């Protein structure tokens, strides 16, 4: 998982709970040999600065395009979006969505909300923290869950991206879904060692 800044420790705990082994990525060399990649929550502006100064923008882009499963939450989703507003900022453009930073307001408006979804268990919730708001989805973007009418969990190719923070709960179905994708990918690539046991994630 990308560990420049943010709640990567929470992602690590959530993935270990699902039986995956994790490595923190702070420089390009750390990207070698991964079976999946997590872009955590945190501040997207901070991550952008550090990606530049570590000269990681290109290598991380290549890893994101390699077809390995990617889980991006909150700031991670912003880094991947096609278009970022409030303010406009650079992004990888790998996820065909337009996203408004802090689109649900400041921290005062943060909280846990019900998700409407055909693929998640009924009653699944998501915690939104100064969350980005998806205002437009383009072709190739599958909406997996909504909060009211807004898409909040989307998939495009191997990328799974959430406006909320599944990592703040252990065994959240979104984490479980990503863990299953990592296992399948590692298995297909004959790299069983990179993904660990098939422990049940509780979801």
């Amino acid at each position, binding site marked *: 998982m990308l560990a420049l800044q943010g709640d990567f420790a929470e992602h690590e705990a959530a993935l270990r709970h699902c039986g995956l082994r994790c490595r923190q990525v702070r420089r390009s060399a750390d990207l070698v040999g991964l079976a999946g990649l997590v872009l955590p929550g945190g*501040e997207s502006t901070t991550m952008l600065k550090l990606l530049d100064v570590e000269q990681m923008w290109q290598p991380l882009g290549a890893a994101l395009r390699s077809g390995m499963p990617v889980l991006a939450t909150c700031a991670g989703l912003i880094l991947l979006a096609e278009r970022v507003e409030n303010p406009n900022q650079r992004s990888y453009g790998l996820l065909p969505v337009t996203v408004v930073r802090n689109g649900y307001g400041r*921290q*005062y408006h943060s909280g846990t909300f019900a998700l409407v979804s055909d693929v998640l268990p009924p009653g*699944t919730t998501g915690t939104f923290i100064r969350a980005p708001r998806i205002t437009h989805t383009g072709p190739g973007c599958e909406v997996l869950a909504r909060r009211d009418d807004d898409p909040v969990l989307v998939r495009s190719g191997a990328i799974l991206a959430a406006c909320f923070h599944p990592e703040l*709960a*252990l065994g959240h*179905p979104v984490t479980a879904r990503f863990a299953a994708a990592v296992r399948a990918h590692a298995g297909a690539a004959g790299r069983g060692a990179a993904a660990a046991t098939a422990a049940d994630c509780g979801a």
Partner: protein
Amino acid sequence: MSHKPPVRNVPGFTTEEVVSKIGFCEQLKGGVVMDVIDAEQARIAEDAGACAVMALERVPADIRKHGGVARASDPTIIEAIQKAVSIPVMAKVRIGHFVEAQMLEAMEVDCIDESEVLTPADEQFHVDKRVFKTPFVCGCRDLGEALRRIHEGAALIRTKGEAGTGNVVEAVRHMRALMSQIRALRGMDQKGLERTASELRVPVELVGWVAEHGRLPVPNFSAGGVATPADAALMMQLGAEAVFVGSGIFKSGSPEQRARAIVRAVTHFEDPKVLVEVSKNLGEPMVGIDINTLPQQERLAGRGI
């Protein structure tokens, strides 16, 4: 069947408070929170990669110099800073001044620092932080202060250090005290935990949580006297999960460069080669103060225990 993913249980916090208040603070980890006094400094901080800014009328070094009663900032300053940046904006209230806190919440400040840097408004009680929706950060010198603040509802703890001195020695003292007291709880029997809880004047459940997990139930940051990238990395290696830098940046020779260097030092706190690289040619650091020359009444860390 309803699916409620399990969330960590923290004594005294509701499940929702754990994810939304403490969860907000988790997002700041591995980052640097910088003190700023206007929109221009806020933009410099954001550009340098700060994960949040602390909006102030005066940085701690100037509060020291200025003397008199230090209060919450003029709302105009906070609003200007909120408009200038997209990262979280924090602001300080005096210890126990719950009305200043109500005002910051009304302004939708992202996090409230109930801070010993300002002149305390109440010598007996801290703000009851549970009644607020906004997360609070509070300073501590040891485990007792940390757990009393968490019991009052703080979602984030920082060392007090000695703000505005550019001298990291007190932050080191406070972090070491906190970490060694946490380690001492491990393996303690129920009687020992009860005795500790009564000594620290906090519920035994809270002490039990720390004993079981070997850490505080909320993130643990460092503040007070950090002036160089090496200071920031030192606090991280001693156990801090992020760093507040007050006067250290904008009281130095080249704030932009120093701010960027400290951000990078916090990410790579365990890599001395990166620390060497970022520490080159940073210009003059802020002039420090030897703590031993500070008269007792000018030491801020003794406020709010």
